[in-house]
């Protein structure tokens, strides 16, 4: 297992470099100019200077190399310096956003908490409610519970989140006034009332996203349970005199969770990608929203860095999913 993991990690390096190159070239080829929003009154020579300052004067491969160097060497150095008070970075040039002129990683670090709180929480909540719903729906297939669950999950993934989001805002914020309609990023949780406030402002976006996540995962759990409930070993367990509880929650569940856990792991990178639309609707300024703004502003370093981070997460969680599969299923051997 360890050798397998190491081999996969080593293999991931060329993959990721290639992905980085593709993203870079795509952004390079895309029309758009970071200077586009500069006032027209700025003389061309000054504009040219500004271009140079942004590093746009050099050929693309130099810039690509520079970005790679900054991403893999300089930024980690700054990170370590920040943690331990060392001075590895020694004032080296960081990846700078075209828009804010500040290091992109600073902006990302500011945005991550919102994304993790809202989107991450919704994923956790979604998984926690999806698993029991999936299990019960399968055990009581075609019961009213199952039919109701089917209906809710249909709603969950066929009605877009911008619709459910706006609907909730209209009902619970505008009409009932229970929850704020805009997420206040500046809120600091340091006592009970502020914690309640945080919960309140998280409630609706978390609910919208959790519904969406739970819809998919519960269907998956249900299908996997049904698949296993029909297996011969279930009959064996019953013939051994095991109670239904043991049969379902031990024999069947243990098998059914294998693919579900994999799917859950594969879904984690999406959390970091943020839920772009939901973040827009509720004005949560997380990573998703950051990406949108960066794209609008032709902020190539920001877009490149964010997209690449998502790519890394996807590759990493793919590996984690595979490893989990091997851990959970004794039939899988990776050597």
């Amino acid at each position, binding site marked *: 297992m360890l050798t397998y993991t190491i081999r996969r990690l080593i293999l991931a390096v060329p993959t990721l470099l290639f992905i980085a190159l593709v993203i870079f070239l795509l952004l390079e080829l895309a029309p758009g100019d970071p200077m586009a929003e500069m006032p027209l009154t700025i003389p061309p020579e000054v504009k040219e200077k500004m271009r140079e300052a942004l590093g746009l004067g050099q050929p693309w491969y130099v810039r690509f190399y520079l970005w790679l160097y900054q991403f893999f060497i300089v930024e980690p150095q700054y990170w370590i310096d920040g943690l331990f008070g060392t001075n590895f970075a020694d004032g080296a040039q960081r990846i700078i956003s075209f828009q804010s002129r500040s290091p992109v990683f600073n902006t990302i670090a500011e945005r991550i908490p919102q994304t993790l709180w809202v989107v991450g929480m919704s994923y956790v909540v979604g998984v926690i409610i999806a698993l029991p719903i999936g299990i019960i729906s399968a055990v009581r297939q075609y019961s009213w519970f199952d039919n109701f669950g089917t209906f809710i999950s249909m709603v969950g993934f066929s009605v877009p989140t911008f619709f459910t989001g706006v609907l909730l805002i209209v009902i619970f914020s505008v009409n009932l006034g229970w929850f704020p309609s805009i997420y206040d990023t500046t809120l600091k949780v340091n006592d009970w009332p502020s914690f309640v406030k945080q919960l309140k402002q998280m409630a609706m976006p978390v609910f919208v996203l959790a519904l969406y996540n739970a819809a998919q995962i519960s269907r998956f759990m249900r299908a996997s349970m049904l698949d296993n409930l029909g297996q*011969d070993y279930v009959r*064996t367990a019953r013939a*051994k005199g*095991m*109670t239904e509880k043991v049969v379902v929650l031990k024999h069947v569940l243990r*098998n059914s969770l294998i693919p579900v856990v994999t799917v859950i792991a594969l879904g984690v990178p999406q959390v970091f990608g943020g839920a772009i639309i939901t973040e827009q609707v509720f004005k949560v300024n997380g990573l998703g929203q950051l990406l949108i703004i960066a794209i609008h502003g032709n902020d190539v370093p920001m877009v490149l860095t964010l997209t690449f981070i998502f790519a890394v997460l996807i590759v990493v969680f793919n590996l984690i999913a595979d490893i989990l599969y091997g851990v959970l299923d*004794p039939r899988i051997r990776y050597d």
Partner: protein
Amino acid sequence: MHDGGRPVLEVQGLKTVFRVRGGEIHAVNDVSFDLKPGELLGVVGESGSGKSVTMMSLLGLLPSPPAEVRDGKVLLDGQDLLKTDEDTLRDIRGGKVGFIFQDPMTSLNPVFTVGYQIMEPLRKHMGMDKKAAKARAVELLELVGIPGAAQRLSDYPHQFSGGMRQRVMIAIALACDPKVLIADEPTTALDVTIQAQIIELMKELRQKLGMAVIWITHDLGVIAGIADRVMVMYGGQVVEHAPVRELFGNPQHPYTKALLKTVPSVRGERVRRLTIIEGQPPILGAPPSACPFRDRCGSAVDECARRNPSRTAIGKGHDVACVLVEQKEAAHA
């Protein structure tokens, strides 16, 4: 060893139906039989004749819905299993009555160790602690002839070959010293040589442990070698029932005769499914009002379509459900 004594198991008038869309399937129709202590009862019949459903009905192992055991009595040591509660039934399953199923590749849970799966019934039915259960599990694996038993407890099913897995299944079924062992085509999924080994093992275990066995199979050749009595099923009912020698020497039901013709001539030849008789077995939408075999029977007469013949005794322990046999018996009397 196996005549005298009260039967351990007595089944009377068992009826099982499946409620399906657009009606019912009458899978078991008025099946009666008994099983004496230490005896081996062979059950033969082609696919769909209701063998498995009959045995699963005894202990409430059929999914309900769609299955419904509609009528009958299942007396195990005098206790009617169709009238007991689920808890009592669970204690009997894997306790007094052990099961072995056809496909050892899928009958074991792939994600639990073999040791765990053997210890499960021991802990539940015998109240053993972990240590005692483990010791007993090793004993059981040795009993069914798995080399290096102690080390193999922590292995997973996929680390065993098909034959070895079936041995594990047998160990599980025997774990709590059952009085009755129900083996539903235990060798059908195995290679011929492995099949012979498992049959040998079962013979040996029966000598040693003395439990009564119900052995379901397609293979009359197997039955001839191990059964004391044989019950032939067709269309969810028992069409002929006799001691093994009598059945092979003096078959009376046209279906049994046809079956005997299809027995593979060379012993040990790969089992052929009994489909050499022309036509398909019936799927009954209603309790049969005629002989279920009449469409495929070479000797059918008019009366066969008018009523369903009941089992008529024609000799010691030999009975047949066929209009022709009834008529012959009536003529004799």
